[in-house]
């Protein structure tokens, strides 16, 4: 049973921040409610005040920014709006691929990308994708100003982020991928959320790998970058052998936590398989063998 609460409807991020300052721990930010209302209904969270950020006007759009070099996705944009956006299809098709497989259509219709990131559930699809996305950042706004936070600074622990109590996430910034870079997102799902997920971004020039970004999600409290695996790939020729070696390195770098989605060893094996698959597909897309 939901306990009674008051809904506040600020018009600007600053007003939302003022409300968060005023009510402190008795208040939280509410957008889609697909995560928050579930835990509130189960009696696992209780807030007397919900700050509905959907009434803030300029956080509902997806547009190009930074001289058309990046996408700015407003914090009130739902998963479904991203999935069906022609802007996203043209500039960041990987996001559509990720969104299509996120939870179910009911969740995607109500839930927002920013809400998913801020809730920081350890099995978040967007968290892993953003963690690997070259140059991605999150815009946090409060009465103190606006700041950009990188994903690896943002995700601190299970359900914990660098967002301060009086801040709201106002946008997600995703730079467009340069020519010659391919991306892929692979996951294994038994329940509603992934057991393990891997996002990979690979740049190939001629027959040489120029850069690799790999992030592994759902394995522990927060996604991690497989940096040793990334470094091993630099200067290599795309192919099964370097991908297997990198996948092994990504699996050894993991510190898996066994949970309802899989044991430690099960997750480690999935990292090996999914990393190899994601690297393979990302590099094929980079070389134009496969189009996303």
């Amino acid at each position: 049973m939901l306990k009674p609460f008051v809904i506040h409807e600020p018009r600007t991020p600053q007003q939302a921040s003022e409300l968060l300052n005023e009510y402190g721990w008795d208040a939280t930010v509410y957008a889609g409610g697909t995560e928050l209302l579930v835990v509130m209904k189960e009696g696992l969270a209780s807030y007397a005040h919900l700050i509905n950020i959907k009434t803030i006007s300029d956080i509902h759009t997806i547009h190009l920014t930074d001289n058309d070099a990046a996408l700015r996705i407003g914090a009130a944009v739902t998963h479904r709006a991203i999935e069906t956006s022609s802007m996203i299809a043209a500039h960041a098709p990987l996001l559509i691929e990720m969104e299509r497989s996120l939870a179910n259509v009911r969740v995607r219709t109500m839930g927002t990308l920013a809400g998913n990131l801020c809730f920081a559930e350890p099995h978040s699809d967007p968290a892993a994708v953003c963690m690997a996305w070259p140059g991605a950042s999150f815009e946090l706004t409060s009465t103190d100003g606006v700041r950009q936070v990188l994903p690896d600074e943002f995700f601190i622990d299970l359900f914990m982020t660098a967002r301060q109590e009086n801040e709201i996430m106002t946008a997600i910034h995703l730079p467009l991928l340069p020519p010659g870079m391919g991306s892929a997102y692979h996951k294994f799902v038994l329940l509603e959320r992934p057991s393990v997920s891997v996002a990979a971004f690979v740049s190939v020039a001629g027959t040489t790998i120029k850069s690799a970004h790999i992030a592994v999600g759902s394995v522990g409290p927060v996604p991690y970058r497989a940096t040793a695996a990334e470094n091993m790939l630099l200067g290599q020729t795309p192919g099964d052998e370097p991908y297997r070696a990198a996948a092994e390195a990504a699996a050894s770098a993991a510190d898996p936590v066994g949970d309802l989605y899989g044991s430690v060893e099960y997750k480690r094996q999935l990292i090996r398989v999914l990393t190899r698959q994601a690297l393979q597909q990302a590099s094929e897309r980079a070389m134009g063998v496969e189009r996303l």
Partner: protein
Amino acid sequence: MTLQVEHAFTVDMPIGEVWDYFADPPQVVPCLPGAELLEIINETTYRGAVGLRVGPIAAQFHGKAELLEIDAAQHMMRLRVGGDQQGSPGRAEAEILFSLSQVDNSQTEIKIVADVGISGRLAQVGGGMIQSVSKFMFNQFAKCIIKVLENPEPTPGS
């Protein structure tokens, strides 16, 4: 859901003094994250409340802590704690083995091994990644203990 958690940390203090501090459980309560001592039932049984807060998740438990065994010579004690979740059907129980070992004359290692059982909806939260919560809470506990033991508040009037 049951799991075993094990945590350890070191304080700059001789083992005897650390033991004296822990041998008086009510003294330790302020360092247990979100804990409150409600009643001393007898020398070995206490009634208390524990609040757990991880990001947006908050759960309150009311229950008992019982000292099952205390061995001053071995610097070891065994406790059983259990509590019912408030406002939602759920229960958490743990059998905790607490032990001290001497690192050298001025350093002591504090170690906790606990078998934790959690039931109810809380066990599903985060896909059951509840180990992380125990680590997070233990780190808060360790920080507090180090602060209290290594920088004691000056006794008023001394």
